[in-house]
């Protein structure tokens, strides 16, 4: 099993969700997050005071998929979230040892 964590632009969430469903992913979890990579922040003005906002709103997705689904899911995210501009986000993939469905104690890929 593989865990895919993707940090994307909030405006791309709907497209990514649809692409993942189309690819056959059954469940995802999302977080509203703030952060930045190479993309620096922007400036905001409040009553003439300038504030450098370097932590920008992002959405973080987390999904765990079977090993054979991994490439499909990653590709779906990339295709849906890419604009080609700086700030599109990152994807991290890592191995998962165990998955457990709380409702009935099923273990392994069947619990995904």
């Amino acid at each position, binding site marked *: 099993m593989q865990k895919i964590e993707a940090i994307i632009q909030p405006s791309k969430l709907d497209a990514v969700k649809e692409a993942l469903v189309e690819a056959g992913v059954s469940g995802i979890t999302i977080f509203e997050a703030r952060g930045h990579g190479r993309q620096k922040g922007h400036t905001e003005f409040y*009553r*003439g005071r300038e504030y450098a906002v370097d932590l920008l709103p992002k959405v973080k997705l987390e999904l765990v998929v079977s090993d054979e689904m991994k490439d499909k899911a990653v590709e779906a995210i990339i295709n849906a979230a890419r604009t080609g501009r700086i700030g599109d986000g990152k994807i991290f993939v890592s191995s998962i040892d165990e998955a457990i469905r709380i409702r009935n104690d099923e273990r392994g890929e069947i619990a995904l």
Partner: protein
Amino acid sequence: MLLAAGTAGAQVSADRMAVLEKAATDNATAIAKAQSAGDNAWMLTSAALVLLMSGPGLALFYGGLVRKKNVLGTMMQTFAMMAVITVLWAVCGYSLAFGHGTAFLGGFEHLFLRGVGLDPNPAYAATIPAQTFMVYQLMFAIITPALITGAFAERMKFSAMLVFLLLWAIVIYSPMAHMVWGVGGFLNLNGAAGGGLGGRFPCLDFAGGTVVHVTSGVSALVTAIYLGKRLGYPQKAMPPHSVVLSFVGACLLWFGWFGFNAGSALGASGLATSAFVATQFGAAAGVIGWCAAEWLRSGKPSALGGISGAVAGLVAITPAAGFVSPMSALWIGLIAGVFCFWMVVLVKNRFGYDDALDAFGVHGSGGTLGAILTGIFATSKVNAVFGEGKAVGFLEGNHRQILNQFAGVLLAWAISAVGTLIILFVVDKLIGLRLNEADEREGLDVSQHGEEGYDWESH
């Protein structure tokens, strides 16, 4: 026979006269009652509108501008005024402002609201119950100290805030209200009737530009300087935590301001309409002035700029509403929007004082500007306060009025600055004004009230 007939004729005509006279008297009574009913309905409505400006208007406006950890503490400061100033007003505040006294302070005849009943007090408003006038004025006395809280936001102890503002209401608000509006007041338009120094400098202040905004704004500046900056200011960014709350608050302020200004006509008259119209025009032009200045300088017109401009325009039109034409109101609002932007954005940052929510930048500067502009634009066509056909404002030819306006503003500046400094010093020595460092970092909500505005764990 003839003689008898003549006497009978005289008798008939005398009876007719009596009937006619009675009808005329009844008519006059009915008209007076109808006017009183109309005036009282408007004035009670206005009183409620002015209270709405404090809570939730100002509480939301200021609450949104502070950081998350201070939202309830900031709202509570304004809300506390709604409670404690009300009690103070009954005990002595009203009497010290509107009782008979000297040219500078009212008397003691209305302590505990003695003699303030349902009959009108002709010295102030002949067509509404004295209690209506009293409660209407109370709403002004509440919002004025509440405005100051914007300057010392996020760093004063709740206990110290209570003592400071209660003393402030007695030492500064009541005397200023008496001087401008009280019988025999030094700056009162009709003060000559009071004798002595009454009316020495007849100052045009329709709804409290000097009494409310100059006093609170100048006291705000003094308090901000006395208290010092917030921890981390100005290096640490402290943007408003919710411009949305401030936006709703500012719109409620605008709405309530109709009671503030048009209510100051003290009746449902044409003068109230004039003040109402001027209020709307001043506010609108204030938005445009501030936003235009901001757009030119920072490249974008912001929501916070828009609502700040509305308040600036409303502050400046406050003394002028009821004295100026709608077109003059547009000019006053526009100038105020640009001027207050300049004060808040450039002057504050140049001098570095931490007037956290710009109580001085908007109310002190806007109030001072409005007082002067009132002396320029006031016209006898709207309100012939000095008698029919007599010039009122500078543009109309009454050049001396500028001097009177300056006298009012100077007196308000002086009393506010000196009085506030003394009160701050005394309260600081007695109980300490400022939060300790740990409490300030933790925020007013938890450290002063033991609660949080936003509990994310609650379902």
